[in-house]
């Protein structure tokens, strides 16, 4: 951490003295372009690297910021210090509208939409009379700062790079926060994040709008730096180049944005000098190199240049600063023996197939109910019906007397239902501790501004304290600083349980928690579950390990072909001929 702080300080210092040193004007100009592009690419890192959304249309948002500044300053003489906010407002609203339309779409439809409106905006700008058509707007005044004109590249440099460094730091802060974890969680799919109570749509919209706002600021600066605007820097090609910068630098790292923007800008400049000489005519031949390089990067070094730098840097270990943090507020517990979950005649049909056939059961406070059955019996589907991942065809599910069937997954999570997954769903690059903290998402409330300004630290410490407590409880506290991908499968399952517990649930649903665990681990897991039961938690357990199930649960529900076969104590169930027939077949 210290090393990184020093590196950042040295970098800022270098930036501060660069314009004062006798550096040729050419390099100052280059550095200014790099700064302008870095701002946009930081947004792309947030959008693509973190939230897993791809946009080829960032150049269009830059254009909105630039044209707003240019038009308002030239036509109405509005102060640039006002137009930046107007530009942000216009871009923000446009991004919000586009996000609400396009982010509902799955996977690849979003980037396709960004291509379409990137092209549309380009042709629109090029054909509107009041924006000067393809010639654009000329004679934009330079910025003035407390009477000081920023008309030279050197004076502009300071303002630009202060903004760039602040943006980079703010986004770094954001990534290390409750909202940042939620953003990472939406990357691989929404089921897990929703089960943790994250409003994934909202998180995606947030990332999209933030990226657009950064682009808009870049556009405002661009207009006052270049002093003219025309449609070509805001077309699809530039949008693609921004993405290229992100991929080249490393789409998962904020500082990768700077590296990507720097390398591309310098490369482009050199190529524009050399390639036309080579070809004998002028033209934008550099896109050949860019295109080939982009393909090669994706084939051989998908994590970008910064990933190599990151590998050399000492690994950041989170400082344990939450020892005296306040405990998170806890949920009121139901009385022992009260019915917590009541499933009444729930049915799920997939087309003609009845996956769950009018199944009923209930779980009481302080009770572990085992749900067993051969593969394909409908156990996981039942799980998904209870947790709102799938809507039931009919039937009723109530939690503490409140209907939850038909509610969204995150709403059910808010009511106190927490779960693990049959196939572990985690954020592999985050540490175990951060993964578990995601489980406590609903117990925090701070959002983007607080994270960027670091006013969320008290809450963050409380979240980390809770995450550590759950890890200790489940017996893997010593692994908390490991990246999740380093864990063995059994440990990952335990981590999921800790994550579920971090939500302070009333009802815990465990989907095959013992799969991949060794005997010792199973025994300690059983111990933890007994202890949780003793604390009044209700647990619904799907598991194939009969030794574990029979020695642990209070009651068992057996399912076969989507239908409930029998319900009873472990002894009753083990004695039942019907259960034996379901598992082992009948004798002939």
């Amino acid at each position, binding site marked *: 951490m210290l090393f990184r702080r020093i590196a950042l300080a040295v970098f800022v210092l270098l930036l501060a003295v660069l314009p004062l040193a006798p550096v040729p004007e050419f390099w100052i100009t280059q550095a200014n372009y790099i700064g302008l592009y870095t701002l946009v690419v930081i947004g792309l890192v947030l959008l693509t690297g973190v939230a897993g959304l791809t946009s080829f249309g960032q150049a269009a948002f830059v254009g909105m910021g630039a044209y707003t500044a240019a038009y308002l300053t030239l036509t109405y003489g509005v102060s640039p210090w006002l137009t930046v906010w107007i530009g942000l407002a216009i871009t923000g609203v446009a991004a919000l509208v586009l996000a609400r339309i396009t982010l509902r779409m799955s996977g690849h439809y979003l980037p396709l939409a960004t291509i379409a409106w990137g092209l*549309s905006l380009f042709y629109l700008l090029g054909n509107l009379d009041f924006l000067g058509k393809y010639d654009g707007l000329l004679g934009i005044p330079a910025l003035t700062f407390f009477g000081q004109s920023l008309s030279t590249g050197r004076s502009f440099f300071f303002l630009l790079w202060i903004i760039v460094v602040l943006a980079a730091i703010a986004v770094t802060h954001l990534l290390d926060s409750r909202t940042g974890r939620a953003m990472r969680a939406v990357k691989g799919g929404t089921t897990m994040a929703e089960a943790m109570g994250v409003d994934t749509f909202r998180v995606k919209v947030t990332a999209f709008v933030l990226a657009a706002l950064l682009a808009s600021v870049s556009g405002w600066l661009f207009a006052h730096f270049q002093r003219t605007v025309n449609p070509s820097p805001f077309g699809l090609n530039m949008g693609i180049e921004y993405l290229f910068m992100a991929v080249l630098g490393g789409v998962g790292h904020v500082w990768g944005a700077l590296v990507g923007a720097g390398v591309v800008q310098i490369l482009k400049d050199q190529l524009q000098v050399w390639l036309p000489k080579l070809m004998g005519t002028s033209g*934008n*031949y550099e*896109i*050949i190199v860019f*295109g080939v390089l982009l393909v090669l990067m*994706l084939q051989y070094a998908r994590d970008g240049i910064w990933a190599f730098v990151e590998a050399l840097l000492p690994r950041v270990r989170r400082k344990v600063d939450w020892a005296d943090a306040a405990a998170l507020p806890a949920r009121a517990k139901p009385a022992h023996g009260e019915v917590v979950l009541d499933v009444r005649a729930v049915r799920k049909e997939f087309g003609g197939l009845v996956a769950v056939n009018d199944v009923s059961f209930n779980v009481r406070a302080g009770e572990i109910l085992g749900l067993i059955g051969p593969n394909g019996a409908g156990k996981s589907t039942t799980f998904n019906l209870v947790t709102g991942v799938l809507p039931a065809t009919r039937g009723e599910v109530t939690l503490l007397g409140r209907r939850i069937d038909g509610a969204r997954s995150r709403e059910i999570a808010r009511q106190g239902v927490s779960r693990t997954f049959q196939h572990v769903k985690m954020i592999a690059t985050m540490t175990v501790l951060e993964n578990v903290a995601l489980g406590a998402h609903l117990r925090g409330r701070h959002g983007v501004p607080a994270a960027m300004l670091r006013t969320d630290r008290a809450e963050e410490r409380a979240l980390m304290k809770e995450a550590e407590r759950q890890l200790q409880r489940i017996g893997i506290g010593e692994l908390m600083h490991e990246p999740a991908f380093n864990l063995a499968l059994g440990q990952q399952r335990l981590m999921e349980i800790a994550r579920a517990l971090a939500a302070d649930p009333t009802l815990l649903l465990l989907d095959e928690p013992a799969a991949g665990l060794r005997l010792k681990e199973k025994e300690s897991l059983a111990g933890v579950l007994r202890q949780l039961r003793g604390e009044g938690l209700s647990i619904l357990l799907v598991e194939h390990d009969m030794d574990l199930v029979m020695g642990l649960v209070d009651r068992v529900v057996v399912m076969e072909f989507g239908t409930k076969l029998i319900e009873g104590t472990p002894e009753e169930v083990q004695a039942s001929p019907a259960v034996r027939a379901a598992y082992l077949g009948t004798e002939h």
Partner: protein
Amino acid sequence: MDLSTAGILLLDGVTNGAVYGLLALATVLVFAVTRVIFLPQGEFVAYGALTLALLQLGKVPGTVWLLVALAAIAALLDLVDAIRRGLPAAQLLRGLLRTLLLPAVVAAATVWAAPQKFPLLVQSALALAIVTLLGPLVYRLAYQRLADASVLVLLIVSVGVHFALTGLGLVFFGAEGFRNPPFWDARFAAGPLMLSGQTLIIFAAALALIVGLYLFFERTLRGKALRATAVNRLGARLMGISTSSAGQLSFGLAAFMGALSGLLIGPTTTIFYDSGFLIGLKGFVAAIFGGLASYPAAALGALLVGVLESFSSFYASAFKEVIVFTLIIPVLLWRSFQHGHDDEEE
């Protein structure tokens, strides 16, 4: 607007729509088989038209050298791969031959034929052959290694390929545009409409290709293998279908359809090195109509795009691209409401 203007616009739109339809079908085909969203489909259009234009001038088009270079790189990669895996020499040679033979033959034929200024049809066949062979090589070099990557990664690769192919187009063909001679310069009056021979050829070629594709997919083993790959890649692999060959075949078909489209519209409009992208994207908008999955919906979408374009160029010519590309957003919205959420990837 009177009826005859409307008729002319409609005919114009449907003609362009037929070409967009071919591109849309190719896009759907490639996506179904490889999950690649092949944005550079349009580049093949420009390559086809401009390769023919250079042949018309009696010059050897640069696309030939691209073909040779790509084949050589592919062969080199195959060689490295074969040595690493310790394949027997005979198998290695057979593989190299398969990669190099056709490109070499076509390149040699072009170099020999170009200065002789053969009739238009011969030159067209040559142009088709050159561009069609580029397709599998593009798949081999850009996508094959990433065949199991997510759709998004493949899409970014497509963007890279688009950049590279456009830039190379500038190298090969220069910044000037070309307009090819028509294949058939007859004209027929049908009421107030003038039907040109070229229009008829466009319709006939589009129809023939659609029927041909239908027969290919329904009647031939290779076609069925492609369909199987489209339905389930792993399953197809387990049945002994090579997904790499399926990918290369689908790209070959896409390149053929792109080049053919280029030959078809070459005489009706001036084609520049970078004209292909916009044309391809319009085919793409059409393919979105079918959710990148339905051939008939894509074809219908193409007609709609063509007609919308011709009418908007009449009413608001400056904004015709804006109108056509903004159309994609409501269509995407409609598709996404139909399909709901399904983004459990990776």
